[in-house]
């Protein structure tokens, strides 16, 4: 179920989808975002980073990892970690259902390494073209909210879409690619 730019993902929440957007001419100032729903909020990721979208399937747990790392799956011979974004964002957990999907993303680490990771979301929503100037910087939410993963906020069809900085989000803290564990054990 590979997703190209022309593909329209089948989501549960795309009733208002503007047909003219899909396949529209893209200039340098416009980026395409795949959006997904997480507890009623709509989040967007750069569509070029999306490798594929697949249904939720059982994972193999990895011990001694943070709770939001659900485990690892076998993606055609590669071991790919699966991150639950609800837990990552400290939201209320949800039973996984038929619309629960895993978006497989390519994450770029600082040293030009690219890694493949999957994120569990409630459902895929839509694909939007957003002009760069339409993306507003995230306001300071104050101490209570960690906004460092938010690249910006965009308004599409009068709705707010939170654009995520996945490289930052999936490289931080426990997910950092540096293999510290071995060093520390001594």
């Amino acid at each position, binding site marked *: 179920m590979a997703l190209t730019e022309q593909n329209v993902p089948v989501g549960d929440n795309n009733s208002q989808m503007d047909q003219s957007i899909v396949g529209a001419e893209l200039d340098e100032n416009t980026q395409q975002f795949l959006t997904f729903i997480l507890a009623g909020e709509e989040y967007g990721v750069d569509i070029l980073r999306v490798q594929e979208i697949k249904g939720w399937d059982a994972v193999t*747990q990895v*011990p001694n990892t943070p709770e939001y790392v659900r485990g690892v799956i076998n993606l055609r011979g*590669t071991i790919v970690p699966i991150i639950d974004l609800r837990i990552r964002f400290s939201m209320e957990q949800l039973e996984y259902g038929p619309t629960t999907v895993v978006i497989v993303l390519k994450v770029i680490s600082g040293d030009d390494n690219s890694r493949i990771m999957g994120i569990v979301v409630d459902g895929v929503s839509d694909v939007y073209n957003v002009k760069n100037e339409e993306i507003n910087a995230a306001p300071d939410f104050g101490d209570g909210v960690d906004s460092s993963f938010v690249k910006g906020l965009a308004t599409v069809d009068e709705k707010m879409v939170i654009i995520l900085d996945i490289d930052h989000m999936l490289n931080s803290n426990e*997910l950092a690619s*540096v293999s510290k564990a071995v060093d520390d054990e*001594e």
Partner: protein
Amino acid sequence: MTFDMSQFLATFYEESFEGLDIMETELLALDVGEADLETINTIFRAAHSIKGGSGTFGLNDVANFTHVMETLLDEMRDGKREVTQNAVNILLESVDVLREMLSTLQAEESLDNDRIATVKKKLDDLLAGTSSEGAPVVEETAVSEVSEPVTEAATSAAGWTIYFKPHEDMLQTGNDPVRMFRELAALGELNSVVDSSHLPEFLLMEPENSCFEWTLTLKGDIKKSDIEEVFEWVEDGCDLTITPTTNDNTNENDELDVELLETTFEMLAPQGEKLVARFYEELFKRYPEVKSLFENTTPEKQQTKLLAALELVVSNLRKQDVLVRTLTEMGKRHKNYGVQVEQYEAVSSTLLDVMQELAGEAWTDKVASTWKAALELVSNTMITGQQAAPANEVESSVVPEQSSTPPVSTASPEKASAKKTPVKRKATAEASSIRVSIDKVDELINMVGELVITQSMLSQLGEEENFGENQIEKLKSGLMQLERNTREMQENVMRIRMLPISFVFQRFPRLVHDLSGKLDKKIELILSGESTELDKTVMEKIGDPLVHLIRNSLDHGIETPDVRVAAGKPETGEIHLNAYHEGGNIVIEITDDGAGLNLEKILSKAKASGLVGDNDKLADEDIADLIFQPGFSTADVVSDVSGRGVGMDVVRRNIRALGGTVDVKTTTGKGSVFTIRLPLTLAILDGQSVVVGDEVYIVPLVAIIESVQVDTSLVNGITGQAEVYRLRDEYIPIVKLHDIFNIKPLHDDMEEGLLVVVEAEGKKVALLVDDLLGQQQVVIKSLETNFKSVEGISGATILGDGTVALILDVTGLISISKKNASSIKKLTAAA
């Protein structure tokens, strides 16, 4: 050459590097003084093929450089030169330089000309020093070429003299001298003189053999390389010397009555010794000031030398080019001794008088004048050589009289002035390759054949319409066959990646050789089990840790000779490097008979740095093991020599990253043994599947000692938290996997579980699991590629049903359990 050679370049480089490795190994194996001919031959052959290859690919710098080495080796091979330690060292250095040159060229960067020139100079000097120590070089074609300028730009306005003697079988290779002469004639005015003296009688003559030799003179402004190119394909099939024509010398020589000289010398030869003795006597009497020049040598030595030189001159009278060259060389050396131009005349006149005295009546005027002319010529040629010699510590008071001979020196001006460009290693992503023996490939092809047969059998079975009991039986046996084929094929494919560990070991003799010299220790390195095979990836990564361990043994382990003697040990220390297979592992042992680790010092140091509590009691092995702790400075502990950069903790970490272990056993005063255990391959592992809760884990089979059912009466608690299991009088700590991994076990009752006793780095633990599944080979997948490394987990694999199973890292688990135990200890201590 019109076709593209570049496709062969990669092979050339690969072969050359192999050749260099061989040269290095064999050079180190050379016994100084009495060298084994076969060894020298091997080195020579390696050098020769590098030279040949580099010539073909137009890498002239490499070809020229190798040529000098080859010449030196050739002399050693022919017994004309003794194998001295100095020569071996210079050759080793040359191997290094060559390696650098080749890798620089491979990376398409510019060469470090200074360094090359320096080492080449050393080689040249060594070569030039031939006749000053020992017998003079008798007509030696190779030597001559060496001393000539190496640059292509070297031209000679006067022209060139080419001495060309095809080996007997040259014609059989399809090379026709006539064609070559025609090509030469196209370059300039060609004169050829043929020497047919070796022509056998008509009846004995083999028409396919070449019996002639030619002396060709080529006039005009011609590049030496152009001439060489003509002879390029016969280089190995002939004796060839190309020398710049020296007008006056040759002409004068032509006029000399060679026959007369020869007869007189023959007459004098029996009195040779007397002659030279008289000569020196006379010389010192007449010119006492020259005496100082002979300070460094005994009269006897000098006399034999002179006699040999005279013989050389006379025997080569007919080969002017050889003679001119040899004399020029001699002149060059004389300058180094501080010989002045005027002294040649003194020598000549003295010699003439002495000869006259001995020859008596046979010394006619004609003979005298011919000899006088000959000696003058000899002196003049030597003077030319002197002038050509590079200025060194001897002030050059030589006044040039005639210098038609171009400088016959080492480094060409261009090269010397070449700007020094630092050699940078470009990180070219070169595709690495391995050489596989044809046997292994053939075996694989056989296996594929069998696989195809099995496949066709199975598909035939699938097409049968009445599928009954009988067919099922057939299907089963077919599947079994398929399984066997697959396994065998897998093993064979893995074997392709396997290389003998000698690839790693072979660099150590050099390391030990260099380092022991530097440290002033006498050390013998013994290698064994070099043919033990190991995966290429593992091999590439084990090199550095091994180097570190060996250096450590050399540096800290083996004592200096006086200390050893005082301790009643032989002066020469021994380091034994051994490799063997054990189970699915390869074991590498580094044994030294040095002082061993200073355990007391290590312990006190560890206590001081807080690694060990003040009151902790540690077993000797545990103390020795402390050297692998990060932040534990070995420099202070064992010796003052340090500055390595990497510590033992890095060694252990690197080895662990390969899935291996390293430990040390030491006996104070007797030495230490470092043992490295490595998996044979990084790709596949024999595993035991175990169940903990809902998860399946793989335990590497090599780590498992045994699996037992839990008998609760043998479980003993310590402080109510840690538990040990008593297994045949041994207390083994229990590691509850479900606790460590934080999962809910299937059975809460320990008695229903199983204990898998595993061992790593000499320590045992018992893993508590819920159930054992089957044993299987698993393909190792890295967790780190897309995730990160996890404590206690060495990787993941994909099971038959497509799910992921994690592979346990036994070493990691042991250290987790130790950490838990120590936190408990602290808790109890605090309480």
